[in-house]
């Protein structure tokens, strides 16, 4: 039996979105048939920013629709890509003539459905794609593979591209900014307890007491290694060190740090993680110029967290700091 609070599985995502509108009706609106979320008041005369993916990661992406961030978000079923039809409809609704940038996390289904939607609109719409593949745990040497997964860096991409679009940047510039954020970002996650399947109530993997799963993604899959649990200081060190190398950070650089809860991680734990992240980076002479701490890209009720570092430039800081007004992010 499931302990997941819902009515039927079939209506879960749509009913949850009705709740989103209940809570944030001033910011967002939900369209059905096909299902997607738009801004309450569509904005014209700017590049449209559209994203989406499987559900179960809330507030991603639907919580990031609003002024200064997404124009539309397209939710699939839990851990399943939205359909190309949904994506196409969302682009048609959001694009007011300045073109659309799609922010897509690198999963086969998402890439396929977003690309096909764009392809089908190619004669009427200018659609560009930013592929987010920040997860170091899935770094492989082979060229033919699916490449790295997309995880929490997508929040930075959506925030920064959203601000640029809002500021009137043209299509190519918004896309290039997004690609720049991706190129400057890396993420690693760790899990202390797997998430439970909403239908069966079973955990997606088991850990013995004293074990944690290193290098997890956001779909309940196992990571790259099962390790012994350690204190926060040591664990954050082991997450941050490969990120620093991968992004190529050097003394004097400054970063955005996203300390992301995977679902059931408590605010106290994320606070400690944020503190340790700063401490580790301080020790390497790298400045944490901005940080975002909270459950922004979740994996149902997984216990764990991910850390994302994005190397900043003055431009990126400017767009990060620009006002945003969405259900999950406001400043």
């Amino acid at each position, binding site marked *: 039996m499931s302990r997941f609070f819902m009515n039927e599985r079939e209506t879960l995502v749509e009913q949850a979105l009705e709740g989103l509108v209940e809570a944030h009706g001033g910011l967002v609106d939900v369209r059905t048939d096909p299902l997607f979320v738009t801004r309450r008041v569509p904005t014209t005369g700017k590049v449209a920013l559209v994203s989406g993916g499987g559900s179960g990661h809330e507030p991603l992406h639907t919580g990031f629709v609003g002024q200064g961030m997404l124009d539309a978000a397209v939710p699939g079923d839990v851990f399943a890509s939205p359909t*190309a039809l949904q994506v196409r409809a969302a682009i048609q609704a959001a694009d007011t003539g300045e073109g659309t940038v799609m922010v897509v996390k690198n999963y086969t289904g998402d890439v396929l459905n977003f690309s096909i939607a764009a392809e089908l609109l190619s004669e009427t719409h200018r659609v560009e794609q930013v592929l987010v593949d920040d997860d170091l745990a899935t770094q492989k040497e082979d060229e033919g593979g699916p490449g790295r997964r997309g995880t929490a860096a997508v929040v930075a991409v959506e925030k920064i591209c959203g601000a640029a679009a809002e500021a009137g940047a043209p299509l190519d510039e918004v896309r290039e900014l997004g690609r720049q954020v991706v190129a400057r970002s890396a993420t690693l996650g760790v899990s202390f307890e797997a998430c439970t399947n909403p239908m069966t109530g079973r955990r997606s993997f088991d850990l013995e007491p004293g074990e944690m799963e290193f290098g997890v993604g956001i779909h309940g899959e196992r990571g790259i290694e099962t390790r012994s649990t350690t204190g926060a200081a040591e664990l954050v060190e082991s997450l941050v060190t490969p990120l620093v190398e991968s992004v190529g950070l050097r003394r004097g650089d400054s970063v955005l740090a996203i300390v992301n809860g995977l679902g059931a991680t408590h605010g106290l734990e994320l606070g400690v993680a944020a503190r340790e992240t700063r401490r580790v980076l301080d020790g390497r002479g790298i400045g944490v110029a901005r940080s975002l701490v909270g459950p922004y890209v979740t994996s149902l009720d997984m216990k764990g967290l991910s850390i994302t570092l994005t190397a900043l430039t003055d431009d990126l800081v400017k767009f990060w700091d620009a006002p945003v007004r969405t259900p999950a992010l406001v400043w």
Partner: protein
Amino acid sequence: MTGDGNAADLTGAEAKAWLLAFAERVIADADELTELDRKAGDGDFGWNISSALKRGREGLAGIEGEHPAQVFQTVSDAFLASGGTSGPLFGLWFGRLGSGPFAPWDVPELGAAFGRATGAVRRLGKAEVGHKTMVDAMAPATDALTETSTGVWRDAVADAARAARAGADSTGGMIAHRGRASYLGERAQDVLDPGAVAVAWFFECAEGA
């Protein structure tokens, strides 16, 4: 047969009858496709494609079938609303067909439409002939349509059906390079690719329509 244009051209009504026949065939024999996907994938292909075609059949019931483009577009939408890998790829294929001329299609137009459609699937699926996917049936069928010397659409599609069937058969013995079957390597070598088989059925269904 029905159709107001030249009998050699594919009319909307004929296209609609063709697609309805395809839907019937797939819905009747879905288990056969599922069984192939069970052996070489995750066993949902029959369900994916038949639920798409059930939606497609409903869509077709609601349109006149003015020209083939309208018919293919309707079926495309049904596939695009589907999950799995095959749903969006078939949705794209039919969607590209759906951007063909808004009038009966002569054979060169038919070939050109399928050329664009199959090209899009190859590009988006990153699949070539020999990768053991639907493209192994789509590509030779498309070649047959574009290279045919007949001016009668039924004859051209019959050529395409033979080519698609041969292509589908050739997937038995292939090691998959795309889709879930690629995870199985040699273990699924003997199994026909269900996507390719479905494409063969598609071309074959023009005959009775």
